[in-house]
């Protein structure tokens, strides 16, 4: 065995030697392969939902996005841009092209076109399903470069790994979650990265690139407001801390002016950059920068400091006065619109609850609980402050940016659950700095003990800390062991993070919420596919121009899957219209029929979980309908539906509750139904009570369809009786 290869061994060895890489090449190879693996990992960890269920679009909003993308690929961009949708908000309709962020749809359609050009005959649905994971993969690359920019390559790599599997991000980017956020987080981080790069280099090219990144972000998601406020804030902080430089001036001016002009091309945003209160901070900082530059120039020209001080005072006062007057005039004349409710509700968490029930009614707009922070960030929550410490220890323009991004987004994440998503990249980056810096310090410590001379020479100036630690080392004999223990601890934590992320992804975030799954009696998986059953029934067996009334949650799904006209949908732009539907649902049947006739309603759809124990049904959402309806029509009063402030559906429920339309439609003939063994008929499993009104008669509506597990019930509005 050994004799055989002796002869050819020599050239092989030479060959191997010639292939042997230098340390730098090795490092590059390892880095590139880690990045490739992370890229693939970020993609495949988001495919749980496809494997568990199928390649399908999830939840509510993605169905609208999918429907518009379908329209875009079938009818072309100009038709899409000018699309007036008659199928939603009947009878008002919706100008789709002017009321959406087209970035996502255009991206998916573009990918679809490219694939077809390359002769990959994929279906547009597959493209839509996989858009979010694809962009998540790209985000890991951006995170790497960003980390490299603010700290070093090690931090970049760790950031890429952390963000690839961070549940906070996965929650919005699993396969099938075809929503704006999927591409927007990529765009957000990319814009920030390009801007920081521009500030660091002072290069026009980078800042131009960041303007385009901003443009893409504006086209993709309303969250661009965060960028247009965070960047001016950052610039302001740099100005205050005396870090003003020509690089900053170039980067911000180019980015702001071009970004603003580009953003105006998006119809939904339009002239908001110059007209809306939310965008005024950016403009103010823009003018402030000019004043700063002017002062700098004057200071350069004037040699007398006293004169300059006086001049400074006058200019600053004038500038502030002019700015304030302009803003005041703009506000008064109505040219500049005040802040919107959504913006207020971000700054003041209690605002929505008191003033805009429609925002407060959405579960993802609730303030975040500690547990969900823990759920979404896990160890990052502890690493984040550590990372901040490292950032403060090595302050630079870039680290100031990441600190500000981290702190502001953490605040917003605390205000609204869904904004955890925005905080995730910052948390990952800051934590990556913590991990990378700690591990680096520890390993340097370990290595310096073995070959203390070498460390100093190879690391050189960069590890002055390390050498100081090495000095400390001699005085503390157990430090090496301590370092090893700490390293193991770090790896243990990181591996826990990885298992936690995988578990969360597979258990919590990979359910499409259209198809519900439960464990059967024998441990087998039971699928409740009732939503699609009902929507497909609507699609096939109702007249094509039928109008369906349902609560707004299901609007997008009914139009996309059922292909029927809806009264209200998830684009909650008209509060009165939604309140009208809420009023109809919470009125008695003969009052409701008037409202329904006036809206030309043919079918009414309700979601009911009493048979299966599905808790997010319309009865549990009903109080919001009452609140929203009552907000516009004072006839509807919330206390009428409550008994001593308690919401109940059993015998002790309020009489108005027991006879309102929603109650009747949900529980119609439910009183005859045996749901659970050993319980009386009409036992509601979602709420665990026997219902209070078992003898429900419908006068103006008739049951048209009920799905096999009763989750969706559809009623037909009867035509008026003959008068003769």
């Amino acid at each position, binding site marked *: 065995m050994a004799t055989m290869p002796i002869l050819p061994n020599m050239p092989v060895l030479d060959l191997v030697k010639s292939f042997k890489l230098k340390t730098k090449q090795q490092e590059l190879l390892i880095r590139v392969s880690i990045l490739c693996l992370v890229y693939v990992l970020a993609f495949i960890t988001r495919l749980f939902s496809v494997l568990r269920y199928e390649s399908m679009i999830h939840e509510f909003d993605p169905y609208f996005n999918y429907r518009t993308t379908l329209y875009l690929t079938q009818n072309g961009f100009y038709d899409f841009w000018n699309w007036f949708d008659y199928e939603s908000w009947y009878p008002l309709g919706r100008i789709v092209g002017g009321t959406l962020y087209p970035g996502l749809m255009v991206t998916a359609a573009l990918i679809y076109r490219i694939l077809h050009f390359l002769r*990959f*005959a994929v279906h547009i649905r597959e493209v839509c399903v996989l858009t979010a994971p694809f962009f998540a993969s790209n985000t890991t690359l951006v995170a790497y470069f960003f980390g490299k920019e603010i700290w070093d390559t090690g931090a970049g790599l760790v950031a890429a790994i952390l963000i690839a599997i961070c549940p906070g991000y996965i929650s919005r980017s699993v396969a099938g979650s075809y929503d704006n956020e999927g591409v927007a987080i990529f765009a957000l981080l990319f814009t920030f990265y390009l801007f920081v790069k521009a500030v660091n280099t002072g290069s026009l090219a980078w800042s131009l690139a960041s303007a385009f990144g901003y443009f893409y972000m504006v086209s993709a998601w309303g969250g661009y407001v965060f960028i247009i406020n965070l960047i001016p804030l950052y610039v302001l902080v740099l100005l205050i801390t005396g870090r003003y430089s020509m690089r900053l001036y170039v980067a911000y001016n180019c980015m702001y002016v071009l970004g603003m002009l580009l953003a105006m091309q998006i119809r939904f945003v339009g002239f908001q950059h110059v007209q809306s209160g939310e965008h005024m901070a950016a403009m103010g900082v823009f003018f402030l920068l000019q004043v700063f530059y002017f002062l700098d120039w004057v200071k350069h020209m004037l040699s007398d400091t006293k004169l300059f001080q006086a001049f400074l005072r006058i200019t600053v006062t004038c500038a502030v006065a002019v700015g304030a007057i302009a803003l005041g005039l703009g506000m008064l004349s109505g040219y500049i619109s005040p802040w919107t409710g959504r913006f207020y509700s971000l700054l003041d968490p209690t605002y929505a609850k008191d003033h805009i029930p429609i925002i407060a009614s959405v579960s993802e707009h609730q303030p975040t609980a500690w547990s969900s922070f823990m759920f979404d960030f896990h160890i990052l929550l502890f690493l984040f402050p550590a990372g901040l410490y490292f950032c403060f220890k090595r302050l630079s323009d870039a680290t100031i940016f990441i600190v500000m991004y981290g702190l502001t987004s953490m605040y917003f994440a605390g205000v609204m659950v869904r904004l955890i998503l925005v905080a995730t990249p910052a948390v990952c980056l800051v934590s990556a700095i913590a991990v990378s810096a700690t591990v680096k310090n520890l390993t340097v410590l370990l290595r310096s003990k073995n070959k203390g001379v070498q460390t100093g020479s190879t690391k050189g100036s960069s590890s002055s800390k390390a050498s100081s630690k090495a000095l400390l080392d001699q005085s503390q004999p157990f430090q090496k062991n301590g370092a090893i223990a700490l390293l193991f601890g770090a790896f243990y934590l990181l591996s826990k993070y990885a298992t936690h992320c995988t578990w969360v992804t597979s258990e919590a975030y990979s359910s499409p919420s259209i198809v519900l799954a439960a464990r059967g009696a024998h441990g087998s998986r039971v699928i409740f*596919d009732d939503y699609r059953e009902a929507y497909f029934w609507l699609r*096939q067996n109702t007249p094509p121009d039928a109008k369906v009334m349902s609560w707004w949650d299901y609007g997008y799904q009914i139009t996309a*899957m059922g292909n029927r006209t809806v009264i209200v949908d998830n684009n909650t732009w008209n509060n009165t219209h939604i309140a009208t539907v809420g009023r109809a649902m919470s009125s008695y049947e003969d009052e409701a029929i008037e409202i329904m006739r006036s809206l030309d309603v043919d079918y009414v759809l309700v979601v009911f979980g009493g048979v299966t124990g599905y808790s997010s049904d319309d009865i549990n959402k009903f109080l919001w309908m009452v609140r929203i309806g009552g907000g516009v029509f004072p006839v509807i009063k919330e206390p009428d539906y409550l008994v001593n402030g308690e919401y109940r559906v059993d015998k002790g429920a309020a009489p108005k509750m027991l006879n309102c339309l929603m109650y009747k439609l949900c529980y119609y*003939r439910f009183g005859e*139904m045996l749901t659970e063994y050993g319980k009386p008929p009409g036992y509601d499993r979602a709420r665990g009570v026997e219902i209070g009104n078992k003898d429900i008669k419908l006068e103006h509506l008739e049951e*048209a369809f*009920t799905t*096999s597990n009763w989750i969706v019930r559809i009623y037909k509005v009867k035509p008026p009786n003959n008068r003769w």
Partner: protein
Amino acid sequence: MEAPIRATEFLRFTLLSLLFFVCRSSPSQDLLISNAERRIDLTSHIVKVYLTLKVENAGSTPTSEILLAFPPTQVDHLATVEALVTKGKRKKTTLARLDVKPTELPDAPNGTKYFTIYLSNPLNSGESTTLEVLYLFTHSLEPFPAEIGQSESQLVYYRDSALILSPYHIKQQTTFLKTPSTKVESFTSVEPTNRAGTEMKYGPYEDRPPYSFSPILIHFENNSPFPVVEELVREVEISHWGNLQVTEQYTLVHGGARHKGVFSRVDYQSRPNLNGVSSLRYLLARLPPRVHSVYYRDEIGNISSSHLRTDSRKSELEIEPRYPLFGGWKATFVIGYGLPLQDFLFESSDDRRYLNFTFGCPLLDTVVDKLTVKVVLPEGSKDPSAVVPFTVEQHLETKYSYLDVVGRTVVVMEKKNLVPVHNSPFQVYYTFKPIFMLAEPLMLASAFFLFFVACLAYLHIDLSIRK
């Protein structure tokens, strides 16, 4: 002189009279039917008629063509006609299939349509033969009342004639009708008419002249669902890498009495025997053996209610639509599956390849109004030709699939009004050079090669302006 003239006169006369007979084509009165028995099966929504005819040649000339007549209203619903002749005697009888072709006769009374049965051996004068004729009607049961509620049962009309429509004299005939249940609301009586259990007997009637017709109307209960596939597109894609991919797009409708009013799930679930008896709950598709990667979905995603049972001889796919289909309700869905290529693709003697596959719809007991079979040949195949046992409309198309440059030739065959009888094999012949199989892998390989070369080039070229 006289004699030859008379001879020619006579010849001319006979020729003329022959021509007259041929032109009128009024079927020679030479043939007569000595005994006819007709059994009409009304149990499902496909009406099956078994006709046994004892044909006798009473004329002097041998004939090999026998005509079948149908009223025009029935012809539109006629799906297939088959004729068999019994050969041999006593216990050694065998059945031989005969050619049947539609025939146009110029002066058919009241627009009667004809089919000609071509006998393999001419029937000499004085001889007689027994023919077994089977024909099927679709859409021939008219629901009445046309709209029913959930708990009502489905009643239908069937219209026919008590006497067999025939261009020949029929000496004796009897018609038996079989209804699915004993519940018959009403029926036309043409004496002698008997009804016993699920069977009705019209006849025997003696000595009826040609084109005798006596309309009858039967109103009875038929609670079997009427699955009608309005349109079915079957696409069979051949890959020489070893797979045959079949995709079938269905537009299914329940063709029975339309559903009216309420659909109550609580009644439907708790009393399935009284409620929605005629609703279509599930369908059975018989697929070829060794089927793999079966899917069942529609425009909005996978449909989870299906079961596949396979054994070595056949595979059965039981599918449930998303919701039970009541009369007039529709459902569209797609079934797809893969099959091993070696079971269906063969090489013919002249070095061509041919696909041997089943025409028709794999769903049991369904009527297909319009069927389109598309056979997608591999890229680079030439001279396609299809051999189908019945007449179909054919044309060629081009389809672009994964990594196609010139596109794949698609042989498209269309046929209307199909019943399960049409599930017979057809062949598509084509020539294909195996070298074309390598085109796509080579394309991919070269694309990757070019990509790596581009990467190499980029790493080694300095593109910066500043030196």
